Structures are given as structure tokens and as C-alpha cells.
């Protein structure tokens, strides 16, 4: 008589991987199927990534092959430049803004939509609209209709254009980016909330939990992985911020809205200092890497 353990062993043996030519052929097909994605990643991500890493230690102008190793000079120059400190600080402000305002608005809207059965899809489409429009279109809309001192909302109210002030320019650019982003978060959060087991929600209601308590103790723990993933993506995107700042303020006036993306761009395409641009790029990636590591660590901890 076979014990359970022996039975399991027997079963396991019976589904052991095929050996010989069939196994090799299956392996080859598997490699062949992942090859396009792998080659694409190597060509588009890995090789440029390695080159950026190397170029950060050179004085490459971005043209030709006259390259000289300069050691840590690029990093020393950047760290000594007060504009870099401003850029880094602005990226951190950007991060704080994006981790709070669009996330809170997104959660509130998703919660409200959750209870709405009719027209929910239409609302989602409307909220998602700014997200699917090209940044240049969104920026133009805001520049000409809202921030324009001659004919825009700001002008009609007799207010100064926020993009023109050193204290308001970063927030003016961040405002437009958040306006385009929160609708996306709403849709993502709503999707996650709808996955919450309905019996848990009903049990909480039967137990006398009010709306806030149901959200706090049922929905929020349920969508925690989504919140975490969106948070990490926000951290990465915040250090890569470029398009709205470039389109609306070019990092100005007087570097007041400069972020590391625009700072690196000026080195690469205005000053012919690709080495320094690569060094700034590495620093930007470093923060993204930190966020990714944090995400991995939290995810693993949750699995334990």
C-alpha cells in the first residue's frame, strides 16, 4: 500500500518534465518567443543605460567621438551648481504634491463613483480625458485659456499669471500635470475597489460600520497593493518630471520651476554637455531605483 507521501512522489514522477529532443525543442520555442521582447529591452534600455552610466564620467559633447574621461568632475560641477539644488528640491516638492493631492482626489472620486451605478462609465471617460490628451495639448489649453494674462481666466480675474512668478511657477506646472493625472488614479482606484469582496463590505455594514469605517477598514486594506504600486510609480514619475514644466515654464523664471529633467535637457541640447546631462540622468534614475527597491521590499514583506 502506498502512503500519501509515496503516492505524491509517484504522481510527481509521472509529470516530470519531458527529456530529450521534445524538452529541448520546447525550451528553444520558449526562448524564441521571449527573444523579441528581450532584444528590444537590451537595445532600448540596457545598452543606452550602460552608455549613460559610462558617459556620465566623460566630457562627451553629444557630437562625434572625441570623448575624454573626466572622472567625477561632472558630478562635482553639478553638486556645486545651486541650480541643481533647486532642481532636486523642486522634484521633491513635486513628489509630495503628487503623492497627496491627486491621490486624495482620486480616492474620494473613486469612492463616490463606487456607489453610483448609473453613468459611472461616462464619468470615468470624462475624468480620463485629460490623461489621454497629449501633454502639449493640455499645456496649450492652460496657457491660452487659464494662465493667459490677455484674455485668459487669470487675466479676467485681474490676477498675475502664476507661470510668471518665481513663487508660483512650479505649482502652476504641477497643477496642470495633476489635473491631467488624477482622473487616471480615479479609474485605477475604482477598478481596485470593485475587486473588494462584497461579503466583507456587507458584513461590515451589518455590524454597524458607517461609510468612513467601511472605507477605512474594508476598502483601504483591500486596495493597499494598488495604492502602493501607484505610489511607487508616482515617485518614479516625479523624478522624471519634464514635459509639463518644459512646455509651461521651461524651468523658469530664474530656474524657479527647474526640475532635474529640464536641467539635464539644457545640458544635452543647448550647451553640448552630454556628459553632465548623463550625470544628472543617473541621479534621476537613482531615486527611481530607490523607489523600486522600497516597493520590492514592501511587497516581499507583505507576502511573508
Amino acid at each position, binding site marked *: 500500500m502506498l502512503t500519501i507521501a509515496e503516492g505524491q512522489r509517484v504522481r510527481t514522477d509521472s509529470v516530470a518534465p519531458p527529456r530529450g529532443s521534445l524538452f529541448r525543442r520546447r525550451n528553444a520555442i520558449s526562448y524564441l518567443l521571449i527573444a523579441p521582447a528581450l532584444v528590444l529591452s537590451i537595445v532600448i534600455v540596457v545598452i543606452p543605460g550602460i552608455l549613460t552610466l559610462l558617459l556620465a564620467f566623460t566630457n562627451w559633447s553629444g557630437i562625434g567621438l*572625441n570623448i575624454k574621461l573626466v572622472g567625477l568632475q561632472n558630478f562635482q560641477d553639478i553638486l556645486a551648481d545651486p541650480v541643481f539644488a533647486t532642481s532636486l528640491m523642486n522634484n521633491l516638492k513635486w513628489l509630495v504634491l503628487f503623492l497627496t493631492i491627486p491621490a486624495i482626489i482620486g480616492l474620494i472620486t473613486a469612492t463616490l463613483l463606487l456607489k453610483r451605478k448609473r453613468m459611472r462609465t461616462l464619468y470615468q471617460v470624462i475624468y480620463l480625458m485629460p490623461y489621454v490628451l497629449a501633454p502639449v495639448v493640455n499645456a496649450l489649453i492652460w496657457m491660452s485659456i487659464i494662465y493667459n494674462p490677455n484674455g485668459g481666466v487669470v487675466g479676467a480675474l485681474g490676477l498675475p499669471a502664476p507661470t510668471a512668478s518665481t513663487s508660483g511657477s512650479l505649482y502652476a506646472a504641477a497643477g496642470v500635470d495633476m489635473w491631467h493625472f488624477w482622473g487616471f488614479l480615479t479609474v485605477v482606484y475604482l477598478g481596485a475597489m470593485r475587486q473588494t469582496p462584497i461579503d466583507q463590505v456587507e458584513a461590515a455594514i451589518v455590524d454597524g460600520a458607517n461609510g468612513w469605517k467601511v472605507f477605512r477598514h474594508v476598502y483601504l486594506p483591500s486596495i493597499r497593493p494598488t495604492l502602493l504600486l501607484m505610489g511607487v510609480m508616482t515617485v518614479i514619475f516625479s523624478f522624471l518630471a519634464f514635459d509639463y514644466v518644459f512646455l509651461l515654464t521651461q524651468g523658469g523664471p530664474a530656474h524657479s520651476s527647474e526640475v532635474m529633467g529640464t536641467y539635464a535637457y539644457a545640458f544635452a541640447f543647448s550647451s553640448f554637455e552630454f556628459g553632465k546631462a548623463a550625470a544628472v540622468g543617473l541621479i534621476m534614475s537613482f531615486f527611481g531605483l530607490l523607489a523600486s527597491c522600497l516597493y520590492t521590499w514592501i511587497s516581499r514583506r507583505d507576502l511573508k
Partner: protein
Amino acid sequence: MNRRRMRLVVAAVCASAALAMSGCGASPSAGADRQTLQLWFWGAPPQQQQTMQKVLVDGFNNSQSKYTLEVTYNNAVDKNIQVALSADKGPDVVYGSGPAFASAYAAQGKLEDMTPYAKKYGWADRILAPMYESGTVNGKLYSLPNSIEDIGVFYNKKVLAKLGLAVPKTYADFVGAMDKAAAAGMYSSVTGDQGWKPVNQNYVSLFMSQIAGGKTMYNALQGKIPWTDPSIVKSVEDSAAFYQKGYLGGKDYATLNFDQSVQLLSQEKSPFFIGPTLAFQFASNYFNDAKGNTDDLGYMPFPTVNPDLPSPYFTLGTTASLSINAASKNKDGAAEVIDYMMSDSFAKDMNKSWPGYWAVPLKNFDLNADDYTGLSKPFVTAMKNTIQGVNDGNYGFFAGTFFPPATATAFSDVDSVWLGQTSATQFLSTIDSTFKTEKAQGLVPPVPEPKH
């Protein structure tokens, strides 16, 4: 998949590959025995593209039977050219931001030495010496400017009349007129750097030319004096005072661009727009015969600020530069295109419908303003005066044209001084350090020496 289907798929893949490869081949012949020449140009508006097609493309293609010129328009042309040249690709005729940028490409061997073509076509005899020299690196010619420009003052005659003012003759009159406009609830003047931060270079160049003078700037570019020289520091400080008094678009400087500024000028929101002569091309959208207000627009050189400098005194710049790609397979053809563009007849035809961009730097800019209509008339007059000023040696330098790239970019940051974020001395110390690095790399283009 059955065998028949498999064959079909293989045939389709082969056909697609053949089609794709045909697109990747060497530059195709546009016609029998004709070689195609490429020129990448900025994304000019459709009307100006039509002028370009008619005067340059059709004109050149009809003038000879060996080449067919094709022009591609793109607003990111500078970046595209930078990427293409670094990969030994790109257009045959290289359109660039000016001699300083061309010298950076030349230093990397990306541009062809045009000296033999200069000899063949006699360019040195035809082109203004300072403009010709600015395109040389170590005695070899690498670029020619397509047009010269000055930074001056556009004014609306109607607004001046409303304010009871005459066209200002002196700097004091000019400032007084701006104060009167502000008191009347208008902008003192309109301009701005929205969407293009290098616009700041115009105004810092203007003040350095008008206060320190071209000779001082020349000495700084030669490395004879530092950029922290007291007269240059004073220029930057005076530019800051000018900005802070609201004379550069007031509080809306960062939200206006040239096009909007000229529009505001036409809407009588200000008597003045301070800007480069290339803005004539934007002005023609708002001051034209169809609107019946062409004669309302006037242009004058910026009134001389420093009484020790002659009047008028110009801030010399170029709108763009033309070079030959070292990787081009049709260098002779590219030279032929450039030669075609450096001609009197080309300048005459382009300026008929596209004022502002084509003051070809010819020694004898033999264009008669009376032959022109619309804004081409004041533009041709302005350019003839500027060329006279260049011949007399009364000019300073526009940073975007004559300064090496990183130094010019650093000058775009002058708004930090204007907005009180840094001092003029600190700002110029950074410029000095950047400039020394670029000078050591041989990136400073040769500049013509002004008389004053």
C-alpha cells in the same frame, strides 16, 4: 497553418522587407540623373513655406539640371540635426542656430571645410567681412549666416500719436515714452520669453552692446578681459533695472512670446515692442495691407544708451547659419545651394513676401526699399541701415550668434539677475568660468573687431 498559407505569409514578409529596405536606401534620384539634396528647416508657417518652395526650392531646381533640392520643416530641427550629425547622417545642407553652434560641430569634424567652395564662388568678396569671418574656425570656413539681424524697437505710430508722442530719438525720450504709456494703463513695451528661454539673450546682448560696447565684448571674447569687467557688470545691472521698471513686458514677460507681443502691439496695448528684426516675420500677421494697418508699424534701432558710443549703435546677430554636412554624398550640390542663397536675386525675391528672415549678409545689399510693399519695405530699410552700421564698425554682439554654446546658454539665465535671485557679479563669475572652459576647448568663434 497549411503550406499555401505559409507561402502567402513568407511572400508578404519578403514584400514588406523589400519595401522597407527600399526606403532605407541611398538618397534616391528625384528625376533622371538628378541627385537629391536635403535641407532641414525650422517649422515655418505654411505661407512662408510656400515662399521657400517658390523662391528657394523651385528657383534652385530650375536654375540647374544636376540636383533636386528638398526642404523638410520641423520645429525640433536643432535637436534633430544634432542627433543626425552625431550619427554621420542628416541633411546635405546643415541649417544651424549660428556660427557658434557650427563651430561646435566643426570641432567634431561633422561639417565640411567650405574654404574651397568660398574660393570657387568668391564668397569672401561678396559677403560682409565680419559675417564671413564669424563662420571660420582656424582660418577655415564652416558656416555662412543666412541673414543678419539687429535688436531694435518696433513701434505703433497710432499709439504714439494717441499718447501725443513723437518717435523717440534719444534713450531719454524712449524711456519717457514708456513711462507715459505705463501711466496711461498700457504696457511700457511688450516682449517675453514664453516657450523659448534663449530670448533672454537678446536683451542681455542689447545692454552689453549699448553700455559696455562691442569693443569691450570683443576683448572679453578674446580672453583679454574677464566677463566680470566692471563695464560688463554695469551692463547686466542696467538690464536688470530696465526689466524691474517694467520696460520688458512688465510683469507678463514670462507669459508673452514674440508673436503675442506683436499682436498686442497691433491691438494698441503698448507703443513699443523691443526685439530682433526677425520679428518682422511675426509682425506681418498683424500689420498687413488686408487689415489696412501696415503703415502703423515702424522700426528704429535701439536708442544708444552710452553717450560715448556712436548713434545708431547696433546689436549684430544672425538668424541662422548654413553649412555642409561632412557626411554628405553631394557636397558640391550643397555648396551650390548655399551659393544660390548668398545672392542678390535670392534676397530680393525672398524679401518680397517674407520680411524678417532673409537679410542676406551681402556687402552690397542692393535692395531698394521702394521696390517693396507691406512690411518688406521697413525691413529692407532697417537692414540697409544695419549693414551700413556693420561696415562702419558700430556694433556689439548677439550672444546666440557669437558666443560659444554653453556660454550663450548661461546668458539665458540672466533672468536670475533680473528677478533678484543672484547678483550681476555672481552671474558673470559663472559666465566667466564657463567661457574659460569653452575657450580652452577652442569653441569660441572668431569675431570681427568693432571700432567702438
